[in-house]
């Protein structure tokens, strides 16, 4: 087994016992990036020089007997996380030259634990997209099949794990942007409960929905990394002041008698037969482990995509008002006065999908339409959230597919935004409800593409979904099947 295939859990023990040095490991990851990234295009920026310096520092602290959980472990971040002194683009032309003046809290916490940064990962521009095709830095390709999308918006974060270019990565999830790419690339993606992880220093898309989470090779690493990044932050007043449990402790518990709910609205006609088959097999696995499978209903599921595209775009239109060419980012040349400078800088700096969402959100918030669109959507959001609370009175967790199909082909849905939006039907309601969810590999399609399974938990129920996911991985081999490249 190559070094670059290993997990945080394995590498931490190897580093601690000096079986491998961080320099050796970091070099292995950098050569892997060099060998595979011309095809995959997961990285926007590779920070090779700094990574090797940090690896050397890590080796020095290990030799002093100081080896924290992530000391010397090479990781990478979606380019939405501010990283002091490192270019942070959010995959947008408008930030093509932006060097972050400070660290996001999630990254600062990983750094405190000794992590080594390999670079910044591709994504859909401002996290708006489901395919990683909306990037000013080119499309990321699915390591399982280069003609397919890796999913989005955290497509680079998932592809980098599938291509074994980083040991672990962070992504963000506003409507499925961690879980869907993790599913399409055959890795583990966790979207924590809203408020569990600080959003400070994470470039905002839709503030009431955005959440930070890990993408990893297995469930153990997901639990370990969540433990590092979770917790209250005075710099994010929406982060919740609750103790962070030792998530790894939950992994060893069995699931006998646990109630797993199947929301009937998610098992619809039109679900890809390979996806359906993977779900049926997973349900059988959980039954054999002693779980009780129960039928539940989330009656407002059909309204989630419409609700999401009003709330998310409205919040985005407000959040993205800051990109005006004045204080940072791209500034248009030859503008005729201050207002024209804003018009032109934004025209030149934003891609088509971002413009479309700013327009839609501005419309939804505009005078005379606020009640009909934004307020209406917020009320429906209450109904969607209530559906989940009702379901969790009958079941401990919910099991669903992550996406209706495996990864689609590059270019397949770019002409029809609404079709692209509808591909997020199973992940979007989770953000609207603010609950937690994890995506794990549960099959491979007849075309050789990975298929993900989604486990949803109560607010702050991360331990339960990790526990159930760990039991699945202990009793199946799907997570050991890797992209051949």
């Amino acid at each position, binding site marked *: 087994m190559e070094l670059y295939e290993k997990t945080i859990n394995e590498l931490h023990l190897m580093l601690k016992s000096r079986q491998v040095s961080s320099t050796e490991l970091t070099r292995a990851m950098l050569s892997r990036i060099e060998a595979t990234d011309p095809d995959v295009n997961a990285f926007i920026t590779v920070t090779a020089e700094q990574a090797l310096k940090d690896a050397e520092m890590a080796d020095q602290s290990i030799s002093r007997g100081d080896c924290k959980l992530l000391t010397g472990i090479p990781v990478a971040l979606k380019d939405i996380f501010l990283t002091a002194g490192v270019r942070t683009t959010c995959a947008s032309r408008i930030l093509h030259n932006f060097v972050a003046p400070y660290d996001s809290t999630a990254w600062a916490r990983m750094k405190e634990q000794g992590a080594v940064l390999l670079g910044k990962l591709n994504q859909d521009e401002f996290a708006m997209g489901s395919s990683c095709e909306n990037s000013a830095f080119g499309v990321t390709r699915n390591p399982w099949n280069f003609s397919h999308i890796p999913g989005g918006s955290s497509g680079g974060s998932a592809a980098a794990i599938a291509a074994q270019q980083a040991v672990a990565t962070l992504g963000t999830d506003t409507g499925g942007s961690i879980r869907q790419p993790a599913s399409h690339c055959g890795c583990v993606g966790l979207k924590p409960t809203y408020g569990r992880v600080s959003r400070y220093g994470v470039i905002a898309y839709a503030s009431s929905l955005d959440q930070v989470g890990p993408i990893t090779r297995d469930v153990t690493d997901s639990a370990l990394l969540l433990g590092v990044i979770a917790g209250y932050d005075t710099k994010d007043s929406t982060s919740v002041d609750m103790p962070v449990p030792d998530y790894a402790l939950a992994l060893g518990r069995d699931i006998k008698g646990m109630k797993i709910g199947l929301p009937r609205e998610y098992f619809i006609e039109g679900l890809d037969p390979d996806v359906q088959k993977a779900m049926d097999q997973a349900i059988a696995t959980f039954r054999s482990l002693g779980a009780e499978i129960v039928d539940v209903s989330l009656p407002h599921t059909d309204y989630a995509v419409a609700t999401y595209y009003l709330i998310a775009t409205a919040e985005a239109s407000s959040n993205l008002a800051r990109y005006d060419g004045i204080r940072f980012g791209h500034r248009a040349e030859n503008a005729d006065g201050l207002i024209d400078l804003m018009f032109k800088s934004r025209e030149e700096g934003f891609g088509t999908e971002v413009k479309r969402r700013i*327009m839609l959100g501005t419309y939804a918030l505009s005078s005379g339409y606020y009640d009909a669109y934004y307020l209406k959507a917020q009320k429906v959001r209450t109904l969607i959230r209530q559906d989940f609370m009702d379901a969790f009175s009958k079941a401990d967790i919910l099991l669903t597919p992550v996406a209706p199909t495996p990864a689609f082909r590059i270019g397949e849905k770019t002409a029809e935004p609404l079709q692209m939006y509808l591909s997020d039907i199973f992940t979007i309601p989770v953000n609207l409800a*603010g609950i937690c969810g994890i995506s794990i590999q549960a099959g491979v399609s007849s075309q050789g593409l990975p298929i993900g399974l989604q486990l949803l938990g109560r607010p702050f129920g991360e331990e339960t979904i990790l526990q159930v996911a760990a039991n699945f991985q202990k009793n199946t081999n799907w997570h050991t099947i890797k992209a051949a490249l």
Partner: protein
Amino acid sequence: MSINRTDIDYISNLARLALTENEKELFTEQMGAILMYVEKLNKLDTEGICPTSHAVPMENAFRDDIPATSIGIERALANAPDRHETYFRVPQVIE
């Protein structure tokens, strides 16, 4: 709800976002289709339902007002497209 070119011009002005002729044409059609799709929310009776602006119930978040250091002028200006001494410079506003 259909969208016409006048609406697109009005919204693009509100958003301070210049659009090309092609984009205007594309968005007129696509936003019309998306707004037709979201019409389905009107099938739901939401009379008396409270809007959710925040998914996790929280009271106002207060903290102690303790002075702390900020990032400083140089770092704040480091990404400025144009600067003059300790200011962001913009095109002349007042004739």
